[in-house]
């Protein structure tokens, strides 16, 4: 942070619209005006075109009022303490001076400052409308890719994402939900060579959401009874993958049943993330649990227990007699094969590798928790189909 170069926030106040960047560039510092350099040249035409808002209507500010070091990656530009103080200053300024209703957070640093833990990655959050729950802040935050990201190699498509977010910034959030009771969302857990379970979700005649898990041995019968009734449309998320797993469970030609695919729907809409978790957060406001967070603790426990057993099995106590025939102090001896294992007993990753133990899998999670976790995927897929 260069304290000698700074750029003051400015614009209309109080106003409905606020645009928050991460820090001023050289041009901004010189003119003491936010978003006037290259990124401003890219940003304002989009704001005017896709939101119908002119610059003069907006409060234009930056997270950090001082020039940041552009050579650093964006998470290194500010230390934690600097970030906190900048954030506090920004929130004060927005709450008491600008009082906006809609805040456009340009770039991930600004988005993180305004949304806190609600911000995950820009790929997932770009264009989502996040309502700030704080009682003093009556605004919604819409994060978007920094327009300058489009100037970098490989970022050509990102400008479209920015513009889509600006459209969302303009619109008042509308909740639209349609329910189609004939949709059954299906998701699978496991792999084509190791299917674990199938989960499904649907709405009954009253619109209540019901869901459950089916284990591979029961899947063919379940499929015959529930899905092949001629009236069902299956909603998959990435059907090409799930079909492989479902076929491994014994279902033949799963594509015969009419289907839709939420990943395909996100793709056709363009400028959307395609992962289920990212889509659920963006469109449903639901933070889904991470696979690794659920599975890893159990898996690590299992790997370590196995390794300890392995070491114990390769350890024996040697009791010898001295030359005079007196018993010596017993000595613990470890086989050479177990030595590399004993050395890394706390590191599950390395243990699994050395012992040939498979990677994390839902199989190590207690049945109830595994089902609970897995069923959520099907539920969100169904809900996504209703909003996408």
């Amino acid at each position, binding site marked *: 942070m260069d304290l000698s170069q700074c750029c003051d926030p400015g614009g209309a106040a109080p106003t409905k619209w606020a645009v928050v960047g991460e820090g001023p560039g050289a041009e901004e510092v010189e003119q003491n005006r936010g978003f006037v350099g*290259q*990124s401003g*040249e*890219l940003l304002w*035409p*989009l704001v005017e*075109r*896709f939101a119908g808002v002119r610059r003069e209507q907006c409060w234009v500010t930056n997270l950090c009022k001082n020039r940041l070091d552009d050579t650093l990656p964006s998470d290194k530009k500010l230390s934690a303490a600097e970030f906190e103080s900048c954030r506090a200053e920004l929130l004060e300024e927005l709450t008491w001076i600008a009082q906006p209703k809609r805040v456009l957070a340009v770039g991930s640093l600004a988005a993180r400052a305004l949304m806190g833990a609600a911000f995950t990655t820009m790929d997932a959050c770009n264009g989502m409308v996040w309502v700030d729950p704080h009682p003093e802040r009556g605004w919604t935050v819409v994060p978007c890719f920094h327009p*300058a990201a*489009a*100037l970098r190699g490989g970022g*050509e*498509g990102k*400008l*479209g994402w*920015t*513009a*889509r977010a600006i459209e969302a910034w303009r619109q008042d959030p509308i909740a639209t939900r349609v329910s189609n009771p004939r949709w059954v969302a299906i998701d699978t857990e496991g*792999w*084509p*060579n190791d299917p674990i379970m199938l989960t499904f979700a649907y709405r009954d005649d009253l619109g209540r959401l019901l869901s459950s898990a089916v284990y591979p041995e029961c899947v063919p019968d379940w499929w015959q009874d529930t899905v092949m009734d001629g009236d069902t449309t299956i909603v998959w998320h990435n*059907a*090409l993958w799930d*079909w*492989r797993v479902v*076929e491994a469970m014994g279902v033949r*030609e799963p*594509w015969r049943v009419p*289907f*839709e*695919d939420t*990943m*395909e*729907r*996100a*793709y*056709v809409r*363009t*400028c959307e993330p*395609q992962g289920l978790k990212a889509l659920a957060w963006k469109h449903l406001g639901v933070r889904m649990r991470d696979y690794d967070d659920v599975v890893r603790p159990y898996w690590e426990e299992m790997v370590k227990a196995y390794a300890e057993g392995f070491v114990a099995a390769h350890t024996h106590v040697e009791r010898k007699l001295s030359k005079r025939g007196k018993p010596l102090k017993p000595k613990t001896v470890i086989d050479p094969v177990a030595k590399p294992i004993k050395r890394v007993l706390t590191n599950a990753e390395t243990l699994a590798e050395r012992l040939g133990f498979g*990677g994390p899998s839902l199989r190590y999670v207690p049945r109830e928790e595994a089902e609970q976790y897995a069923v959520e995927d099907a539920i969100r897929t169904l809900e996504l189909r209703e909003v996408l």
Partner: protein
Amino acid sequence: MTPVEQLDYAVMPMLHRMTQRGLLVDQSALDALQRKAAARMEEVLAELEREVGHPINPNSGVQVADWMLEEGFAGRMTPKGDRLSTNEKSLRLHVSPVIDLTLEFRGLQKIVGTYIEPVRGYSRFDGRIHPRWKPTRVASGRLACGRERAGKEGYTQWDSPNLMAFPTRDDWGKELRACFVADPGYTMFSIDYSQIEMRNMAALSQDPELLRIFREDRDIYAETVPALFGVPVPPDWKDNSEWKAAYRTPSKVVTLAVGYGIQGRSLFEQLLLWGCGTPDAPRFPLEACDPLIDRWFAHYSGARERMWKVCSIARANGGWVETELGRRRFLPALFYTGRRYPQSKMRAEAERQAFNHEVQGTSQEDMKRGMMAVWPRAEAGDFEPLLQIHDELVGQVRDPGVVPELAAAMVAERGGVVLKTEWTTGANWAELK
């Protein structure tokens, strides 16, 4: 459900079948190829040592840059600015046996590391590669292939290498493809749409000259030569390999380049890549490349008009470009009006993408319709689909007599242009070209 979605869903069963069946790999041929590559790498290293006078590691940027400095070669610096850049692009600007050997070594390493090793790894379970298709990655509707992201698990049974990126042109690529073979009792075949993007460009732009060429079924690359170089087409050009290398090849490069909307700079590089001159004596110097593109467009002026029209339709449409069936791409940069750097660059880029999206996206829709047309035959067991790469469908049949029927079923027609298909058969993937 939109028509695009319906089309995408309709081809998914076929993609699934390709994945489940998998592509048989001839393991002994693969082993032989790897041994051959290793032997050649040894040779190259020895030759390098002889040429340079001391052992040199072609992978070490520092060592190669030092050698370049000793030889007095100048060029671009690395981004850090501490030595000469030794990436392929910078090395290609110089002519020296050492540079050729260095590039050959790196190429071989790439062949082994990104193709041979993964093919072996992924096929070790059942001797097959099960291509993992990703139909939702490319904006124009093309397929992508390969594993999701580099993970720790190594080669697994359910992932695959990126089969779309396998090299085609050089001998090593051919030999690599020869390792992918048809199942016993089957013959491999390939059906591809001939010049589908050019044909669609003709159909969409309705340029009279392009339409005439495709209606009369002439060779567009040869027909373009007079307009580009002012040289008439000799009546016996098909047997005149000298003329073909001198005029038809560059004309082909320019024509394809225009379809992608590339600029003079990249056209220059492409022309060198296709063997039109050497870096120190290019047949078409950099300043001659932009006029080539201009002359192409002057000759086929309808194409240029279509390019403009696509952009103006997109502007009227709020920045959305659509293919025939409605696959959309959002290009807000079309609305920039500035004449200076960031805006002008983004706008030019968007204009290029707009036309490219229409042509490539529409071609891809034709390909998917073609797949739909032959899918019933696959379900009946007449053939086994294996791969779909860009404008090409690869499969295998028990009875080669079926192939012409399939090719005929895939032929389509748009705006007075027939989208012709061509087919070949062979015992392995390399024999299909």
